[in-house]
């Protein structure tokens, strides 16, 4: 009798607890849905007013009510791809050094370093890029390149310092730790038996990485790249401070030394002043576009990670 009572008592507690968890989880789902709905509702004036021309237009002129987002979208994609392109070899180098060659004692400090680099606030990358790197890169990298190979349009002058290429460089430094730590994790998963088999057959460590480690982790490395890309696409502060906020790239001036505007820097610098419904709507549609791009890379990332996890279990 006593036992039964307490068990039904427990059942009630269990139910309450379960509903508590479910309501917290529902809140998360609700917030996500609300976020999406808010963006769609907010961009309606732009979707209706600008139509498809929004995605293909190259002019952004709020005074005359012309909103074309193509340069911002291209800048966001190109800076992120360049950044990840710079970051992959570096991150893989770190991962290979870490898993194959680093002395055991060096491993802990190395992970601390990687994590710290990942933890530095982006606004600090911005102030560092703006005040320290930009003048150096203008004088010692961009100016010589403009003078020597400036006749090629994408390296054309003037050397601004603050530019698309500087933004890519800063982004690359920001995504290196993200790609590196995932790559380390994946390379460490290479089955020891396979690796030891290679080594006992007389292979060098390098050969074991190239023949077993990297192919084994191939999909994972792609996933790491997607993760880095996701981070780079959504980065705001560092970009806004070093990209130059100009709408000329790539149509008026294709040079990578020219200033540009990314989706995030456009929103950050104009959101306060969007006076008309269609202006505000255009900025929110930019945000929606960005969300769709980042979610797509996020989905791709998770798809690949799940696949590699399943392969690893097999």
């Amino acid at each position: 009798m006593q036992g039964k009572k307490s068990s039904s008592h427990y059942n009630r507690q269990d139910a309450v607890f379960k509903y508590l968890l479910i309501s917290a989880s529902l809140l998360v789902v609700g917030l996500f849905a609300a976020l999406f709905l808010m963006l769609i509702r907010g961009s309606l004036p732009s979707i209706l007013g600008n139509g498809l021309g929004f995605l293909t237009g190259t002019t952004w002129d709020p005074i005359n009510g012309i909103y074309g987002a193509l340069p911002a979208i291209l800048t966001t994609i190109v800076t992120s791809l360049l950044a990840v392109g710079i970051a992959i070899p570096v991150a893989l180098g770190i991962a290979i050094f870490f898993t194959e060659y680093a002395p055991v004692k060096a491993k802990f400090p190395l992970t601390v370093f990687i994590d710290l680099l990942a933890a530095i606030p982006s606004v600090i990358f911005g102030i560092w890029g703006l005040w320290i790197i930009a003048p150096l890169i203008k004088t010692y990298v961009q100016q010589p390149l403009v003078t020597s190979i400036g006749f090629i349009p994408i390296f054309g002058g003037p050397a601004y310092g603050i530019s698309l290429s500087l933004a890519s460089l800063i982004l690359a430094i920001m995504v290196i730790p993200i790609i590196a730590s995932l790559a380390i994790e994946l390379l460490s998963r290479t089955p020891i038996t396979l690796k030891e088999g290679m080594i006992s057959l007389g292979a060098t460590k390098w050969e074991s990485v190239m023949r077993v480690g990297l192919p084994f982790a191939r999909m994972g490395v792609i996933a790491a790249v997607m993760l880095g890309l996701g981070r780079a696409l959504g980065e705001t502060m560092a970009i806004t401070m070093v990209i130059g906020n100009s709408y000329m790239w790539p149509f008026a001036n294709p040079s990578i030394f020219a200033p540009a505007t990314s989706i995030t820097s456009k929103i950050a610098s104009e959101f306060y002043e969007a006076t008309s419904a269609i202006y505000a709507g255009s900025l929110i549609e930019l945000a929606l576009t960005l969300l769709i791009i980042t979610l797509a890379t996020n989905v791709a990332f998770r798809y690949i990670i799940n696949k590699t996890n399943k392969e690893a279990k097999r």
Partner: protein
Amino acid sequence: MVSKIAIGAILVVVVVAIGCYILLASQPQQPVQITAGGASFPYPVITKWASEYNKLYSHIEISYQSVGSGGGQNNLFAKTFDFAGSDAPLTNAQLANYTVVHIPETIGGVVVTYNLPGMNATIKMTANVIAQIFQGNITKWNDAAIASLNPSLTMPDADIVVVRRSDSSGTTFVFTSYLANASSLWALGSGTSVNWPVGLGGSGNSGVASLVQQTPYSIGYVEYFYAKNNNLPSASVRNQNGEFVEASLASIAEAARQGTPLLTSDVRAAIVNMPGSGVYPISAFTYLLVFKDLSYMTQAEATAIVNFIWWAIHDGQSYTEALYYPGLPSEIVSLGEGMLRQITYNGVAILG
């Protein structure tokens, strides 16, 4: 063990934060907080005023954010700012929708500033040369048009890096109004933001000043204070009388003196390119914008705003010259007084 320390640390942070908050919230006199913002052009003056006013009336806290004139207007219309600063007056269309009064609170000049390593002399410029540089027609520092104005100087063979505003700006409005008025070559029109064909975009006067400071061979336009305060040079500009005049308290004040009759007939009048000797041609009055009917806020807030602006155009004027803004002419002060008297709360004039 360590995890306990970590929990402890978080708890301490949370408790201290909440504790301090409660302490602050239980201050004897409830503070009146005014959130305002807009033009970066008068930002140094307004933050100085706010700080001095807070010393006089410690419960009144006025926070002014430099988000650009366009941002100021937009937030005023949305009522997220209690008043706004703008160098660009409202258009007739805007005034039809929003009943707002303009109170001219100070005067400033827009200077053409540059970063030429090794150059100590002041460069001379005309409206046409400035127009061509900012339109991308003149791209080299040693271009004949610049060199012929400055025969005694050796201009470097370097690309000009144009720096202009990325946000919607009253400084841009003043600068482009001047170019549209004074140069037949200027094709971009005038407004708080124009469709720039070249250049780096800086956010706020400070953003442009920062970019000019750290970019060799750059040129930009900022409010006089921002150049002065950062030891950036400013070009002397040819005025209507054919004199090359540098921005200074005297030359900007002279422009304001010449422009005062225009304002007394329409407070929104521009005073760029004024005739007269010793006039700095890129000068402007800048405005505080307030809704005529402040019933949407608390009475304490409404009164604080009106009293603060009254104080600013009277006692506050003694602080402006130290910041390189000339004091207001007395006609403009009485104009501002008239504007302030129009402001009402629940149908009653606040200044009674």
